[in-house]
């Protein structure tokens, strides 16, 4: 199209090409970069600091331990990112984790290892589906729905264990958690697999794009033909599935399960990882790599605290502070780099 055609076509349909947001100053662009990639910078900085400060840090054993220790949270956080991007919130992951752990242990003891694993993971899926249905069909706000659901799940876990500690002894059960492949524990491989799958889902798959629009504006998404309820429900199912896997794997690693695992501390860690990573907690945008960085960052911080001989009781105190700092930084960053409207 030549210039005059362009001008007449644009005036035919629209207004002059003046309007909000056409040009961005360099300062604004820098701020946007900082908001978007700040977490990478901070992470690298911390990594460097710790390598320098402690000889024990930059060893293969220590780094592998770091991955191992945080793999289960990582798996749950990756799935949790999908929920948040779709505009929801799953605060029942700690409880799903607990019930899955407990069920897998109980069935491993009573029936068999395979039954235990199936029960654990299956229960995660069922609980996720339950959450999803309450939110979509029941039309309940997801925070409240998963809050209530979480209470129910955790209490069922209490009932199942009768306040006892369950210890499945079978080797084949604990193998899952304790064995390695190419020198790396299975749980880390599972984390890696989760990262790949969720990344593809979010960034490349139709599901991911639909989840993003549902989180950005559910009514507009519906009017655009997206099956909103289905998408949202699916995110909760995936989150439950992940929490179920985490429960089974950790039980397998430790060889024991009781109903007090998980809980709000777990939820805090998962949400902290996602928030610190930089994905917006309001939904609509987010990335798995961010969550991974967030998980590792939190892992680094707790690792560092322990190296500094800080009592692990205070771990959550620092995680809490980190959430506040991370979210505050995001909010401030967005405010400065944001665009206005006429």
């Amino acid at each position: 199209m030549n210039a005059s055609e362009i001008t007449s076509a644009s005036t035919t349909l629209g207004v002059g090409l003046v309007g909000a947001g056409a040009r961005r100053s360099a300062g604004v662009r820098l701020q946007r970069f900082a908001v978007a990639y700040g977490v990478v910078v901070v992470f690298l900085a911390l990594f460097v600091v710790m390598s320098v400060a402690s000889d024990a840090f930059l060893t293969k054993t220590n780094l592998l331990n770091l991955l191992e220790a945080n793999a289960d949270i990582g798996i749950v956080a990756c799935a949790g990112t999908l929920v948040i991007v779709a505009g929801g919130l799953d605060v029942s992951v700690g409880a799903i984790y607990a019930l899955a752990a407990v069920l897998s242990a109980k069935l491993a003891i009573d029936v068999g290892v395979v039954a235990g694993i199936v029960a654990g993971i299956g229960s995660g899926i069922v609980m996720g589906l339950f959450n999803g249905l309450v939110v979509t069909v029941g039309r309940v706000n997801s925070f409240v729905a998963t809050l209530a659901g979480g209470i129910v799940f955790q209490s069922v876990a209490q009932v199942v264990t009768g306040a006892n500690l369950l210890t499945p002894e079978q080797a084949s059960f604990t193998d899952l958690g304790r064995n390695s492949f190419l020198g790396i524990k299975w749980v880390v491989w599972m984390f890696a697999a989760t990262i790949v799958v969720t990344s593809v889902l979010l960034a490349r798959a139709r599901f991911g794009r639909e989840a993003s629009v549902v989180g950005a504006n559910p009514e507009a998404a519906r009017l655009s033909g997206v099956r909103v309820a289905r998408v949202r429900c699916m995110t909760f199912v995936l989150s439950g599935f992940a929490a179920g896997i985490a429960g089974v794997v950790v039980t397998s690693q430790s060889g024991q399960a009781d109903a007090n695992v998980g809980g709000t501390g777990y939820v805090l860690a998962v949400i902290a990882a996602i928030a610190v990573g930089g994905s917006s907690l309001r939904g609509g945008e987010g990335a798995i790599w961010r969550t991974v960085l967030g998980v590792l960052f939190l892992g680094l911080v707790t690792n560092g605290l322990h190296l500094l001989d800080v009592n692990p009781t205070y771990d959550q105190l620092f995680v809490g502070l980190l959430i506040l700092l991370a979210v505050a930084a995001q909010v401030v960053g967005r405010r400065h780099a944001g665009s206005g409207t006429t």
Partner: protein
Amino acid sequence: MVPLLKARAVSKQFGGAQALVGVDLSLDRGEVHCLVGENGAGKSTLGKIIAGVVQPDGGSVEVDGKHVDYRAPRDALRDGITIVEQELSLVPAMTVAENVLLGIRGRGRAGSARRLVERLSSEFSLDLDVGEEVGRLPVAEQQKVEILRALARGSRLVVMDEPTARLAGGEAANLRKIIRRLAESGTTVVYVSHFLDEVLEVGDNVTVLRNGRVVRSSPARHETEESLVTAMLGREAVLGFPEKVCPDPSAIPVLEVEDLRGRKLDGAVGFAIQPGQIVGLAGLVGSGRTEVARLIFGADRPTGGRVRIDGEDIRGASTSEVISKGVSYLPESRKDLGLFMRMSSQENVTLSALGRVCRLGLVDRRRERRETSDVLERLAVHPPHPRARVETLSGGNQQKVLFAKWLWHSPRLLIADEPTRGVDVAAKFGIYELLAELAAGGMGVLLISSELDEIVGLSSRVVVMARRRQVAVLEGDDICEDRILRCAFGGGVTKAAA
């Protein structure tokens, strides 16, 4: 006499764009001053600066001869300046009286405060039931609550931003009467609007803005619609409706609605749209037009009746199914329901039919680019680069992306709900041209509009709704503003549906 408000060289920047540059404005007591201009010309911004909602970057504002620096609406309130925005700011769960008195302290006991509100309401012929919950009131009444609130604070200046955008004819006329009463009692009104005929009727003075600058300020009686449009655009513009196309009555209708009922409707709806026909859906605000559109589109579930697209029954289908049958719906509230600002134009366009660019559940980006480039070119959308977020585009371009979204999969039926709302005069006619072009290509168009001249100018058939039921179907010579209005107010004969 010192003017009530004087703005000097006011400028404002948003992000990288200049919304206002070197704007001067002078307002007297009891004056009705109108601000006109294209979308993005800055009139809304100027109104917001006056009311303290937005802070200027440069220049100064004086009230009663004294320099003021408003950092929040509260500051302007103290000087007696209020704003009634397009998005009404009311608390739905509270009553009219409570909303009016919100934030006003020291009003004594509840009883006397309520009486004050009642007195104001009748004094200005607002006729509101002050005990009613605001959430239950229709939009036109809610707007009156806002005006009442301005009065209760003893406002000396009220800024109204597009107040008649969502009002039907009679209500808009009523509002104009209220504004004149306000002016007569000494209140200054700043009236921001696209409706040039209203502006000329109710305004004392008119200021035209273009690209953020003042073109001229002059008394309304010295202006005409044409002179205002010329000033707004900087050139002459043609303002006429395209030719109407006569549809082929023997072809299978693109849309056939038979005995359609829904929870929010009071009766059954029935009409048909031929290929190449533009059918207007007219009625007052709240008469049920958008509800009908939503039922056809699958956004709400019908409770009875049939909907056929090209002869195929689609009643009860979900929105995604309806879209796949070739129906597009351009919703009323474009900013809220149309575009996803953080996605690119391509991604916005393909959203309604993602299946077309997906393989095995994954999005094929190359295919997406190919498929969307055609329609984006045709509408002359030129983002800085292909993956640029829609939020970085100008308002006009954004609108084009929205049209592109609904046209790219060549729909059979386009439901356009208030397509020219908030659009300035020149662009409006551009949209009319587009609609006529689409119809000429065989598309059926259901045009929902509160602007009677649009309905009359474009439609070859008009369905009129009143109080949530269909009251008339008008054809040919029966289509005129007079007839439509009478039906819309509750009269009229229901002709047999086609």
